[in-house]
């Protein structure tokens, strides 16, 4: 018996040839059912359960699967959705919703006041691992079923943001029966009342949703009643940006989220592709400065950093065509004011002067020193396995110009979170999608140091008071004034360095029409059509 007969390796070579040849046939369009839209997302959602997810990507998908009590479109107006009408009590502590009577969940069970109560109780249940939803029900004191289609939701103190949150995907309504019976499947097969149902979920690859034929109503954003136009939508998870864009250009997908800035010029020239850019509400891409850790505990240093950061640099590179200058801890969509715009123009000279004032003198290697100590800062960044976030590198480079040595601590998400909770670095760069300006609560309230997301580790009683006031104030005008004060205080104390108001960028093939967006800039596909 001799090893390796010549015939053996002939077979081997042929197999190889087949492998290469087989793959080189021009890629046949995957056999798709007609009227199927394939979309590419940049991340896989950690879960599809709207109450359990901390991550924005879940809601890209969920926006077409579950429905909420109210709806808020890009115009910012609250309109009825699953609730026909609502009234706030005089003391501002409770809201009574009158619900629609003609709604059924995808599993056939009826939507009613019991279902609403179940949903909210579930979110606040300490045994339930809730995501962003929990914080939105701060001070929840219970929901009372008044009759089959009336429910009263109460809070311990007046809670103004509740109505806005009630329009968000985080507080959307899922089927109680499904939650009770499907166990772990709630994460991959959420059961809602919307125009699409989730048909399958293949981890690390895609999830498919199909039209809900039983949908007979008129959705708040739509002019017509009835089920969705599309039969199937496939959401593919394609984290690699270059690949994602390529799938759009080749037609493998008909829409992609988050095409990177460098690909936009090419896409814009492509007549078969159109680009939808929309601002979203929340906290912009921002560097939270840890005010408890020297040398950042000195407000002059923090202000100097704000002057030293040239936001144009970000807009010329990483966010070219996909963002606007951020001016405050809230995106311009939420809060816009000339006083905010004027706060920290790029001024390296002023930055250096402030640092000098704080005692940091120019040093030999270009880095400032004070009493023999170098001006060093540790920036907490996320390592994507390979190149480091260019935003972090830009910060490093810009601050180097004024004599600050920035060390980038790049790590995976879990240790990154831990360092933020422990205030162990000089701060991370992050962003937050938030439907209501109350988002600043999570950013700055002293009770959230060590949690999500007070990573500036700030404990400022004045700020706390303003934030709590903003929660209670029902009058829109007065609320705006309060949040303006909060933003101004945050800027004055230089608690953060606002970088870029990112835009949500969806690129579609021109045959895709009728895509709408909600207030959070998530796409709604009920009226979407696909023309080949």
């Amino acid at each position, binding site marked *: 018996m001799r090893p390796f007969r010549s015939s053996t390796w002939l077979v081997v070579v042929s197999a190889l040839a087949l492998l290469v040849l087989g*793959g080189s046939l021009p890629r046949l369009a995957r056999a798709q059912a007609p009227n199927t839209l394939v979309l590419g997302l940049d991340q896989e959602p950690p879960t599809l359960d709207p109450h359990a997810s901390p991550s924005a990507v879940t809601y890209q998908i969920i926006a077409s699967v579950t429905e909420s009590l109210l709806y808020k479109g890009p115009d910012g107006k609250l309109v009825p959705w699953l609730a026909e009408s609502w009234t706030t009590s005089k003391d501002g502590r409770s809201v009574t919703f009158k619900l629609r009577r003609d709604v059924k969940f995808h599993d056939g069970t009826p939507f009613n006041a019991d279902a609403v109560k179940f949903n909210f109780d579930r979110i606040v249940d300490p045994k339930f691992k809730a995501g962003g939803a929990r914080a939105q029900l701060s001070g929840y004191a219970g929901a009372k079923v008044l009759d089959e289609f009336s429910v009263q939701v109460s809070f311990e103190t007046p809670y103004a943001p509740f109505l806005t949150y009630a329009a968000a995907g985080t507080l959307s309504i899922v089927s109680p029966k499904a939650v009770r019976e499907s166990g772990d499947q709630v994460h991959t097969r959420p059961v809602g009342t919307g125009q699409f149902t989730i048909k399958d979920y293949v981890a690390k690859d895609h999830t498919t949703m199909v039209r809900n034929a039983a949908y007979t109503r008129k959705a708040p954003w739509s002019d017509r009643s009835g089920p969705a136009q599309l039969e199937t939508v496939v959401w593919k998870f394609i984290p690699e940006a270059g*690949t994602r864009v390529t799938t759009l250009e080749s037609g493998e997908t008909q829409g992609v989220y988050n095409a990177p800035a460098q690909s936009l010029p090419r896409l814009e020239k492509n007549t078969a592709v159109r680009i939808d850019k929309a601002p979203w509400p929340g906290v912009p891409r921002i560097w939270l400065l840890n005010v408890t850790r020297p040398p950042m505990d000195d407000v002059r240093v923090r202000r100097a950093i704000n002057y030293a950061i040239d936001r144009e640099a970000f807009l010329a590179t990483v966010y070219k065509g996909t963002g606007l200058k951020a001016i405050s801890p809230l995106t311009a969509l939420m809060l816009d004011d000339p006083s905010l715009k004027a706060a920290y123009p790029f001024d390296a000279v002023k930055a250096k002067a402030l640092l000098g004032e704080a005692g940091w003198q120019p040093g030999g290697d270009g880095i400032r020193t004070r009493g023999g100590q170098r001006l060093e800062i540790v920036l907490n960044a996320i390592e994507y*396995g390979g190149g480091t976030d260019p935003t972090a590198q830009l910060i490093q480079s810009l601050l180097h110009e004024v004599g600050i040595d920035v060390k980038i601590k790049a790590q995976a998400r879990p240790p990154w*979170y831990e360092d933020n909770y422990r205030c162990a670095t000089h701060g991370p760069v992050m962003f937050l999608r938030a439907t209501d300006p109350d988002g600043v609560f999570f950013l700055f309230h002293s009770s959230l140091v060590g949690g999500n997301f007070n990573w500036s580790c700030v404990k400022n009683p004045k700020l706390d008071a303003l934030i709590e006031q903003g929660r209670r104030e029902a009058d829109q005008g007065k609320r705006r004034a309060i949040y303006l004060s909060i933003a101004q205080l945050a800027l004055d104390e230089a608690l953060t360095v606002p970088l870029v108001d990112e835009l949500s960028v969806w690129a579609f093939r021109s045959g895709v029409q009728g895509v709408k967006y909600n207030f959070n800039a998530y796409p709604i596909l009920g009226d979407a059509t696909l023309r080949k």
Partner: protein
Amino acid sequence: MLTWSARRILAVVPVLFGVTLAVFSMLFLVPGDPVKIMLAEFVTNPDQVAQMRAQLHLDEPILQQYARFVTGAVRGDLGTSIRSRRPVTTEIGENLASTAQLALAAMVVAVGLGVPLGLVAALSRSSWLDVASMAAALLGVSMPSFWLGLLLIFVFSLHLAWFPATGGGDLRHLVLPAITLGMIAAAIIARLTRSSMLEVLGQDYVRTARAKGLGGFSVVVRHALKNALIPIITIFGLQFGNLLAGAVIVETVFSRPGLGRLIVGGILNKDFPLVQGVVLFVATAYVLINLLVDVAYAYADPRIRFG
């Protein structure tokens, strides 16, 4: 034959023990407190630190810990991943197929490209073909696999859109990673094939066969080839191990699920139990594969057993 095999198999046991010892000691070589380093995401109040320490049995005497480690490994329990909270064996199980697929496909590429290339070089003797083939092989050996991967992505994914650049699953996702990983091994095999073939062709018995007029070119080549392939088979096991290791990089380049991404993720996440488990698994697999190759090879070629 049986005694030889038995002795060979027994020789592996102390090596495997040594491997477990080396992997076990990793946790203790970490500068600083490994428990504190691992406990990211879950807040570090002293109770939780103590709890984790107890969970990992770090309070027990070292010998007992080691015994626990080894018996666990033998039973198939490699601990629990700190991040995913799932057994390490489950994580490995989910990712193993993808890596094995890649290594095998790469082996096919390596042999399928390398052997013919080396043969062409050897048989054409000092012509430009020989020089060209060996120059190509030399380039192949010097090329970083991650660069080759990016080049292939650039041409075949981004421009021609023939193959996907990332992900795993089906045959289409396997082609580019397999070529990347295999090409470099192909270069090594090509050089080896050439030198081995040349050596054999220069042997007396070949010249004798030719002199006797034995059926011309193909007969001679077939005989020579069989002998020339012996050293190639010898490094089969070695190459497979290199492919396993090289898969770490290629999987990252192509964002392909597998043991490679598992271990790199584990290192970045400071997930020591996961890293230890994967390292132990791969090293053990490598040792066992080499053993298998040795035994199969000895069965085929009696000279090894008795020589």
